[in-house]
């Protein structure tokens, strides 16, 4: 299985230090604009050809999993925003679903629909950053500017519902943090109405552009078997031709009731990953439309579970109900105590399979939280794809895997 080796930086630096290699060893990063974060790559180069490359990670390690062990379940939620900072709501969702599974609590339909709508917006927003930076890495400046303009609309919707553009913490265990505001519907409408032509515009600029094709077609190919062996998930796996999407395979939050397709590629090269993500944006927009229609149809309703042992009572209640006041105080100081046990939930984040494993010892704080971060696993395939390619392709490859270093290092 030599083809599937993942070298460590030592494997490359070691021989070079002993003078055993003719090739040049080059450090790329950790501070390099096209590594999309603090990723260090140790590259062994023969001329301009990459002989081997070893990712060196950990520069952004903040001990999120460990810190969560010392916070109550509800407080630990804010850490999840800070892992994949381009898709905070996907992380929130993965974590709250796992804790809700521990608690076995029921979530109102309105909250579920809002969750679907907002996570799909997150997916579009995250793909827009990928598209913009990917194009920028390959010297297409305008796409970057256009993509960020649309992302601004999405961030504005997040600010509208949660008060924060990126660190939303909007999905709480038991439902949503607050109800959707009154002008949520018109703002989402504005986005739905304007977004589709914008995607066409990106495609005008890139899809058939000979310069773009030259840099992406047949570059960084990976076969389906290798992709599975590396544990690749998300658009990078689907580009190899498998329709593996957790929203279809193991539906959560009611995804089985939405009508959408899973776009797949054929060749598993950078171009197919591009096509898959572009098609995913259109599919996500379709899901947003359906969720939007449902929200209008169902009208106002509860946005969190009625279980007062999990979700705090509305504030208007605590002024006149002693019981509510006690619940409120208990929840904010002590938190809730899920029964002993563990729960694993994986969802389809913009980058792939985002899993959360929570172990409860019956206390108010998680005994252990672990995340299966898609960026971390996907990054393993980078050396395999980069060997034998030019140095310039390496830049395109990193962008096409779309890693978020906050999530890789956690």
């Amino acid at each position, binding site marked *: 299985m030599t083809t599937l080796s993942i070298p460590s930086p030592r494997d490359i630096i070691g021989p070079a230090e002993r003078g055993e290699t003719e090739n040049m060893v080059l450090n790329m990063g950790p501070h390099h604009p096209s590594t999309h974060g603090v990723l260090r790559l140790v590259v062994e180069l023969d001329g301009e050809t990459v002989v081997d490359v070893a990712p060196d990670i950990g520069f952004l390690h903040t001990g999120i999993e460990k810190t969560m062990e010392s916070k109550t379940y509800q407080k630990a939620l804010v850490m999840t925003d800070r892992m994949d900072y381009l898709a905070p709501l996907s992380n929130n969702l993965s974590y709250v679903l796992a804790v809700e599974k521990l608690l076995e609590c029921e979530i109102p339909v309105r909250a579920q629909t809002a969750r679907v709508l907002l996570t799909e917006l997150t997916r579009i927003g995250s793909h827009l950053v990928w598209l913009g930076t990917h194009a920028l890495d390959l010297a297409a400046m305008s796409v970057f500017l256009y993509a960020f303009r649309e992302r601004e609309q999405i961030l504005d919707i997040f600010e*509208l519902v949660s008060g924060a553009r990126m660190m939303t913490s909007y999905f709480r265990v038991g439902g949503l943090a607050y109800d959707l505001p009154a002008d949520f519907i018109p703002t989402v409408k504005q986005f739905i109405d304007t977004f589709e032509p914008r995607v066409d515009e990106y495609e005008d600029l890139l899809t058939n552009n000979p310069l773009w094709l030259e840099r992406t077609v047949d570059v960084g190919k990976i076969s389906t078997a290798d992709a599975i062996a590396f544990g690749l998930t998300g658009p990078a796996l689907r580009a190899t031709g498998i329709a593996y999407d957790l929203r279809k395979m193991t539906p959560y939050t009611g995804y089985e009731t939405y009508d959408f397709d899973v776009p797949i590629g054929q060749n598993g090269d950078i171009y197919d990953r591009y096509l898959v993500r572009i098609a995913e944006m259109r599919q996500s927009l379709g899901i947003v439309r359906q969720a939007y229609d449902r929200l209008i149809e169902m009208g106002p309703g509860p946005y969190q579970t009625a279980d007062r042992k999990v979700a705090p009572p509305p504030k208007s209640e605590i002024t006149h109900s002693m019981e509510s006041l006690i619940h409120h105080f208990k929840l*904010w100081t002590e938190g809730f105590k899920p029964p002993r046990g563990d729960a694993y939930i994986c969802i389809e984040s913009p980058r792939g399979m985002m899993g959360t494993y929570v172990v409860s010892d019956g206390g108010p704080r998680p005994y252990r939280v672990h995340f299966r971060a898609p960026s971390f696993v996907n990054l393993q395939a980078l050396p395999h794809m980069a060997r034998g390619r030019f140095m310039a392709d390496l830049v395109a490859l990193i962008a096409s895997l779309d890693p978020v270093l906050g999530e890789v290092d956690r």
Partner: protein
Amino acid sequence: MIGDLVKGLATTVRYMFRKPITVQYPDVKRPVRERFKGRHELKRFENGMERCIGCSLCSAACPADAILVVPAENDPATPNSPGERYAATYEINMLRCIFCGYCEDACPTNAIVLEHQYELSFYDRRTSIYTKDMLLVPEDQGHGEIPPVLEQVHRRPSPPAQMDL
């Protein structure tokens, strides 16, 4: 092939004649949404009394341990707050704060509210600690525009869409 290049070029050229959507910060400031979580303020009741009763719930709810509350008994002759106690010391360390709004959600009297000021900067760690004098709204500014009851969630309606698209 050339046709596809021209198609792309046409897109960019079209944009040359459109109004830019860039906001020229700091000359122009983008309005924030109603729920925006910025700098904290300690509010007062209509009659000028402090809302904060020194219960420390905000401090308990804070995931970043950024709040310090030291409560003291009210002097019945000149009470600071309508309850038995008030916050003698109230400090928020703005370097620790992550602006999550948990303090606002936890506060039973709606005393602490995350307002819309977002330009916070300090020269050293000491000045990053915002004391009660800095956080409390001045008495002459009345009750500091807060809803009478505790429906923080439905605060004033949001300003219209912020971008001219």
